[in-house]
């Protein structure tokens, strides 16, 4: 059995990226699927995702409470309504890619379908004990920024995906995939060496470093979250611009979080409603939401870190 997002599940094949869990009640199961299970008869396509080149990289099909997730070059996943995720690897892909899609796409989306709030965000716990998250679309710098903090002594909660619990008194966050994934330029700029990093897919130049919670590299328990920073699109930022942090309030904050929330079926009303309520509960006086605007120049990362930490020092009620 394995542990992810503070949840225990069992899996028919090894998941070396994750910590193993002692015997506990499992929340869901992962199996290698019978090809007959992936017969699309009766399923209707609900959503498609395209990359920047216009290529369809994934689509979702639904039949009542069952889902088929198809990654055309890599794998298919069947998600049943009783918590069983079945996997079918494409002949031309790799087990490593299957695991990557399972841990970073399917499991987060499945957990979101159960009513949990899962966000596309990185997060760290700073040396002063405060935890912050960085939220935004792929490519805006979440992983690089979190890695920069981690290199500087922070504990990495996640580099890409967090589960948020909007508790009564405190919002907490815990990560899923326990690792760092960076493109070579960011990797070299932040770590100055590539020892421990490995390629995990032939379709990307990114390399990953798996962190271990028994080594204290990733937290094994949820952390109280103090602030969320929404990363600005760097498209119009001049390289010489100052780092700028501004509060984001009300509807703008809520819409930004809604946009970054995972779902198994983006059109499913129950999930839309769950995310709406959970996000509304999470945005409170105890969780600050800020926009973070900075030039995407690696040499400026220390300045960004300092600005975030300075902001936290001034927000005494966070």
């Amino acid at each position, binding site marked *: 059995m394995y542990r992810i997002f503070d949840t225990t599940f069992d899996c028919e094949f090894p998941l070396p990226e994750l910590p193993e869990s002692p015997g506990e009640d499992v929340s869901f199961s992962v199996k290698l699927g019978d090809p007959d299970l992936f017969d699309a008869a009766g399923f209707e396509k609900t959503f498609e995702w395209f990359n920047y080149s216009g290529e369809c990289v994934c689509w979702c099909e639904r039949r009542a409470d069952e889902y088929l997730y198809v990654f055309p070059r890599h794998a298919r996943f069947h998600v049943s309504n009783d918590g069983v995720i079945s996997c079918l690897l494409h002949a031309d892909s790799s087990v490593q890619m299957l695991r990557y899609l399972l841990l970073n796409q399917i499991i987060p989306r499945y957990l979101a379908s159960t009513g949990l709030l899962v966000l596309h965000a990185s997060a760290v716990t700073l040396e002063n004990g405060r935890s912050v998250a960085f939220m935004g679309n792929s490519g805006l710098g979440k992983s690089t920024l979190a890695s920069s903090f981690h290199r500087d002594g922070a504990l990495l909660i996640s580099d890409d995906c967090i589960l948020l619990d909007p508790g009564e008194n405190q919002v907490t966050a815990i990560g899923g995939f326990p690792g760092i994934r960076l493109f070579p330029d960011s990797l070299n700029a932040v770590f100055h060496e590539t020892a421990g990093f490995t390629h995990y897919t032939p379709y990307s130049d990114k390399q990953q470093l798996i962190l271990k919670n028994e080594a204290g590299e990733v937290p094994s328990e949820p952390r109280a979250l103090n602030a969320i920073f929404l990363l600005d699109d760097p498209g119009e930022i001049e390289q010489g611009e100052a780092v700028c942090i501004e509060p984001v*309030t*009300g*509807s*703008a*904050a*809520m*819409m930004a979080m*809604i*946009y970054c929330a995972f779902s198994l079926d983006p*059109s499913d*009303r129950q999930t*839309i*409603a769950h995310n*709406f*309520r959970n*996000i*509304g509960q999470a*945005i409170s006086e105890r969780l600050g939401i800020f926009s973070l605007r900075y030039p995407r120049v690696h040499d400026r990362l220390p300045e960004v870190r300092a600005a975030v930490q300075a902001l936290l020092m001034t927000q005494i009620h966070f």
Partner: protein
Amino acid sequence: MTLNLLFDKILNMNYQAHDRFSISSEVLSQEVNGETVLLDLEGECYFGLNEVGTRVWQLLQCESSVGEALDTLSGEYDVSRAQLESDVGALLGKLTEAGLVTLAS
């Protein structure tokens, strides 16, 4: 995904003081820092209300009549009654047009 900002267009809609509105069962609302986000599950649309719109929405949730809402708001905001009637009327028109509320018969 877009947020539709209500309360930004003047419509010539007239209501009676005793008129009451029903909020659609398909609408979820969430107040955040003085503003309100509305989610219309039927249309899969989000709407935003500013501070005054939030106050009007709170009064609708209490099933206040139009007249009762205007009386309450008159005591809370330093604007003329005529301005208030115009602005609240416009908002109610927008909410109705969007299918978020209906005039109760």
